């Protein structure tokens, strides 16, 4: 055995031994998590998603320049690693050269490696330029990044020098296939070193390269570059559907003593994998309405803070001393952080490695609310109202159907022979502005000849506000009551003008035995228009901008239907705000924030209204009762109510449709 082989075997076993040990600890911590998450369904789909996003870098490339930079480094890393492995193998056993794959294949391989060495070097330069000169806010400062960029750059330089000197020293046939290294060689040739010296220098740089690689492997487990290993599996195990419901809790199971997450160990292994996967890219933070209005929450820091909480508790977790694990709420993750979230899901949609931030926030809220009764004081009457009157506001359940007075709308009790059930929701039932929306939508349904009915006083709040605030117990009580009534009438189809009701009835009631075909009114109206049952004929010579509701857009992927509904209005001028579709800015009401005071930072509804006003629209079209309230308030705050109207899409279509 050569001295090189001996030294390499010694150093590499130290390095790989150490990093292997670190990885085993990380894996062990994952397996010690108490929460549940089992995702082994739909394997083919998972494989395809993983290939597209890992090998294809699909989500990463959502951002053009930074995405290309990352993809180049990643692809380069793949091909160059083949060379690195070859280096390792031949250092130990020189004859095991990869030339055995055949001269053509081998030529192509080394050519690609050579090209990528330069490409990666350029990408690293761009990364430095972006990080240190452009300095996008989301990136923040990172020692990790500086170390990794230096190491990656040095790796590429060492490869080029190793190859350059080798060409000057011996130049085997396949090195002809390395255009970049040849340039380097001709540059290095100026010094006129002897071939022997050149070969020694080449060996020197080979060692520099190998040692950096080994150093990397030691460094990865404790850095943000853990994502190199974690992001792939995290993609594989991600929630596949856009329409994800919150995971239900089984309150019947008496062995469960802890609801929600009070400690990091109460979360699931998938949550831990999420934490391992974060690349600190800041894409989540860039779009977060809370962060952008100076609230203490940033989804990126939330993930990093939870990760450091996990690491701080590593010894206790590994020793199985769960009782001693510190609270998940600490000086970084404060109550205010947890209550600032609007559950708009912009963070999750933006995250290139599919981290699910909202799951963790909800889990922590569940513990605060159900275990500790700890939540903003103004929420208590909301829970009480929901318990006593089945609505978050202080209204009598006996008055639920008052909005429909004089419209001769039948209830299911009066006439269960219907095409579709109109689910009114609490805002449509009690809020004066939104009652008008419901009246307009009911009028549209009549014009289209749709046979519909309402549940009347048998309808209750869907429970959604309670669920998002963390009161799963109250949510399930209401959801089960509603499902019982819906199933009693054998309801098959439901239409609602509220995206929150829509989301929970469609995606979450099925966990409790409620299976229905559920439509948001934007989908329903779009369908009626396509079928020719509604023909808006009156011209609307207005500039209209559409505000995306989070629970319609990001949670249910419905962006086009409300826009196509609006486009059916003759002469309408539809414009987009600065942020729209999946990049849209939340109105501030989601995640139960509708019922909480907003005392920190700028008001989110004002930020969104500013975008709406900047679009110069005279009408802001909404498709959600809470957005309606928030944007209407925002317009009033800006004293623009005489110039700009906020209207629901149903009202606009109803006005333009003759009876």
């Amino acid at each position, binding site marked *: 055995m050569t001295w090189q082989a001996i030294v390499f075997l010694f150093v590499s076993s130290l390095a790989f031994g150490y990093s292997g040990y670190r990885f085993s600890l990380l894996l062990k911590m994952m397996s010690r998590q108490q929460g549940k998450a089992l995702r082994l369904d739909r394997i083919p789909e998972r494989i395809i998603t993983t290939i597209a996003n890992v090998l294809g870098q699909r989500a990463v490339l959502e951002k053009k320049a930074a995405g290309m930079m990352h993809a180049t480094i990643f692809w380069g890393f793949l091909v160059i690693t083949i060379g690195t492995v070859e280096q390792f193998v031949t250092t130990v056993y020189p004859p095991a050269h990869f030339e055995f794959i055949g001269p053509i294949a081998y030529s192509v391989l080394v050519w690609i490696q050579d090209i990528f060495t330069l490409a990666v070097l350029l990408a690293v330069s761009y990364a430095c330029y972006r990080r240190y000169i452009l300095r996008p806010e989301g990136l923040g400062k990172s020692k990790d990044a500086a170390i990794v960029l230096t190491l990656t750059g040095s790796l590429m330089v060492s490869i080029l020098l190793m190859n350059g000197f080798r060409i000057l020293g011996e130049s085997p046939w396949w090195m002809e296939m390395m255009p970049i290294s040849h340039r380097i060689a001709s540059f290095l040739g100026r010094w006129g070193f002897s071939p022997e010296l050149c070969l020694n220098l080449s060996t020197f740089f080979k060692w520099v390269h190998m040692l950096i690689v080994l150093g990397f492997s030691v460094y990865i487990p404790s850095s943000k570059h853990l994502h190199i290993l974690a992001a792939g599996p995290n993609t594989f195990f991600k929630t596949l559907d856009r329409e994800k419901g919150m995971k239900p809790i089984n*309150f019947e199971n008496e062995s469960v003593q802890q609801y929600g997450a009070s400690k990091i160990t109460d979360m699931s292994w998938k949550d831990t994998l999420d934490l391992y996967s974060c690349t600190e890219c800041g894409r989540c933070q860039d779009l977060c309405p809370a962060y952008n209005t100076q609230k203490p929450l940033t989804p990126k820091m939330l993930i990093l803070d939870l990760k450091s909480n996990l690491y701080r508790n590593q010894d206790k977790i590994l020793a199985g001393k769960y009782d001693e694990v510190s609270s998940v709420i600490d000086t970084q993750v404060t109550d205010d952080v947890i209550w600032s979230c609007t559950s708009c899901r912009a963070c999750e949609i933006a995250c290139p490695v599919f981290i699910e931030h909202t799951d963790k926030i909800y889990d922590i809220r569940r513990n605060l609310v159900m*275990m*500790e*009764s700890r939540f903003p004081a103004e929420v208590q009457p909301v829970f009480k*109202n929901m318990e*006593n009157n089945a609505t978050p506001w202080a209204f*009598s359940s*006996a008055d639920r159907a008052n909005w429909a007075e004089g419209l001769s709308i039948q209830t299911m009790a009066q006439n269960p022979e219907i095409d579709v059930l109109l689910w009114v929701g609490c805002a449509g039932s009690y809020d004066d502005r939104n009652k008008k929306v419901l009246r307009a939508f009911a009028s549209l349904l009549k014009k289209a000849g749709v046979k519909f009915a309402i549940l009347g006083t048998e309808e209750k709040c869907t429970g959604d506000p309670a669920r998002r605030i963390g009161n799963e*117990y109250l949510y399930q009580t209401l959801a089960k009551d509603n499902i019982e009534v819906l199933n009693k009438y054998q309801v098959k189809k439901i239409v609602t003008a509220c995206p929150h009701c829509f989301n929970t009835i469609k995606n979450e009631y099925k966990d409790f035995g409620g299976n229905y075909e559920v439509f948001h009114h934007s989908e329903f109206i779009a369908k009626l228009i396509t079928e020719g049952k509604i023909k808006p004929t009156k011209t609307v010579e207005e500039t209209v901008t559409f505000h995306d509701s989070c629970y319609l857009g990001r949670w249910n992927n419905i962006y086009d239907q409300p826009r196509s509904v609006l486009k059916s209005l003759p002469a309408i001028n539809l414009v987009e705000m600065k942020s729209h579709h999946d990049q849209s800015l939340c109105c501030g009401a989601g995640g139960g924030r509708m019922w909480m005071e907003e005392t920190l930072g700028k008001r989110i509804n004002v930020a969104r209204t500013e975008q709406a006003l900047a679009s110069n629209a005279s009408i802001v079209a909404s498709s959600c009762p809470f957005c309606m309230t928030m944007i209407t308030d925002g317009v009033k705050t800006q004293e623009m109510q005489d110039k700009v109207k906020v209207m629901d899409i149903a009202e606009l279509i109803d006005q333009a449709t003759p009876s």
Partner: protein
Amino acid sequence: MNIYVCIKQVPDTETKIKLNPNQSGIDTTGIKWIVSPYDEFAVEEALRLKEKNPGSTVTVLSAGPSRVIEAIRTALATGADQGIHIEIPETADNHLTAKALAGALKKETQVDLIFTGKEAIDDGASQVSQLVAEYLHLPCVSVVNSIQYGNQTVQCKREIEGGSIEILESSMPVLIAAQKGLNEPRYASLPNILKAKKKEVKSLKLGDIGVSEADQKIRYKNFQLPPPKQAGKKISGDPTAQAKELVRILHAEAKVV
């Protein structure tokens, strides 16, 4: 310390009250019952006192038809230890209610403190707390919005006419009737809600405590709903004419001047 709280179950504040067909009482069908909000302050005060004095117990009492057990359970879910239900008819008056509560309390071996709300929000009579104290020969401080606990004494603050604050000191045992502002009642945590289902609620009949229905002093004959709110009237014209018209209406129509 043995702490007792008397609570009443009342219709939810948003209930649309209807009368039963013969107008002898309200129609209770479909009513959502809650713990009277002032009684929630009383329960909360008892719980906080218990938390400060480990080893104390909080017992919740309510007199009424069997539906009021649900109100006792609600109080147990916030952390009270046990309940006592005294069965009295739906039509009981304040005297019978107070006798029943006092009768049950007399059977307890040691009573250190009794809390109640300053009034129930259904009939708003503010009678029962004083009557209970009277029947038990205990001092009573009502409409209390702050309490300081000493050794076997309490110092209570209550707001009186003109925004002044009256401070009263009493020895224990004492009955204290809570006013809004005394504390912020908690929201029951789920483990406590689940535990409450298993806590003991003792049931007593009037006979068990030496009280009889004959102790009722008031019989209700007839209930009437307040007349429906009329639409507002707008008086127009110049100020003098408006003033004249207003006086005329107050005199001739509303008959108040």
